[in-house]
């Protein structure tokens, strides 16, 4: 039960006077990020769709990074992760991050492989 809250976000660059002010500040930030996401989703700027980085469109990179940013602030400020012991933070975050990254990597590679097999109608190696 941490009655004292850490009141600075953005690595200490933005400090709030009270916990309530911080909550509203984080809400404004999350809203801005969501508005950017929705605006990009509706407009779909051409140059972000044409170029790719590591086989993924720029636009999708932006969406995924902004999602992780939102997830960070929801967990850190709404779920009070910022006020917990670093050992609890790490136990929760690294377990999830490691297992999820592994699962996604394996499944997406496998999915892409099956796509290639369907497309060429040819079994390249053990299917």
């Amino acid at each position: 039960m941490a009655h004292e809250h850490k009141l600075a976000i953005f690595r200490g660059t933005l400090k709030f006077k009270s916990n309530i002010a911080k909550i509203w500040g984080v809400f404004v930030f999350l809203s801005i990020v969501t508005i950017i996401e929705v605006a990009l989703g509706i407009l779909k700027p051409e140059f972000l769709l044409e170029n790719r980085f590591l086989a993924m469109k720029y636009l999708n990179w932006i969406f995924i990074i902004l999602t992780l940013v939102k997830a960070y602030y929801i967990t850190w400020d709404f779920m009070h992760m910022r006020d917990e012991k670093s050992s609890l933070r790490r136990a929760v975050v690294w377990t999830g991050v490691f297992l999820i990254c592994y699962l996604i990597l394996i499944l997406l590679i496998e999915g892409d492989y099956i796509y290639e097999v369907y497309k060429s109608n040819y079994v390249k190696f053990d299917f």
Partner: protein
Amino acid sequence: MDTTVAKTGTEGKTWGGGNKPLNASYGKMMMWFFIVSDALTFSGFIAAYGFSRFKFIDAWPIADEVFTHVPFLHGVPAPMYYVAFMTFILIFSSVTMVLAVDAGHKMQQKKVIWYMFFTIIGGAIFVGSQAWEWATFIKGDYGAVETKGGKIIQFLDTEGKRVAIADFAEKIPTARNVHEESNGVWYEAEETQTTFSFEEVKAGFLANDNLLVRTQYYDENGEPTVLSREESIEKIVNDGKLVVEGANLKHNEYGHPLFADFFFFITGFHGFHVLTGVLINIIIFFNVIIGTYERRGSYEMVEKVGLYWHFVDLVWVFVFTFFYLV
């Protein structure tokens, strides 16, 4: 609690009990255990969605074309706006929840009551919106034809606008004899009938020269491939099998049936979480009103349900990205 826990005589020592591992109380720690495991469940679902999407990457429906509806704005295509609204509702109910937790720390019963009330309202609006979105998705809008190979073909006019099958299908008078349970030893209820039969859609399509067909597959510009009139006729006559209206677990007029399956499953599982979250919030809300936590001297229970509620919001952030944006 004291009456149910046996004293060991080693209280105060490191392994004597009574310590809080990681400085979190038992209940909070268990809530984090649950949240981590539930997060892994959701990532399993979303990763499975990614797997199926990568498998059919050149034919996966575009969310913008599927979710274009806003309540009370019938026929106005507005992709994304309604989901964005739902996202805001959920984030805002998270804010009122965290304000309730903050008021709880300060032992302000009245404020906790009001903030919990707004949280519950927000959750209810979200679940209602999701139900509406499901209903719209199940109903469908233009209708399509499924081929013998299970692929979806949709109809366009020569200007590239979508055409609903109801606008061109020709009514062919037929008499259907429904097999009823009283007439047979072996009886299975028939499937839901579509408004038009495939033969009616085919006749209407052949009679209207300005209609074209588009397939699920994307051309090099990332647009669904539109066939020429001759190819379209060939496709309908040779491959067409049945009419699909809306989406269910077997057929999906918007594209691959797996898209509908994952949509129902993932948003359904998330919606179930929101529903249980609302119910738990209501229980805690009444506990706050009758003063349970005031007597207990701690509003930690509000903090624990708060953790769950924020988690539901957190999951929605990911569902929103992977179902509607990416």
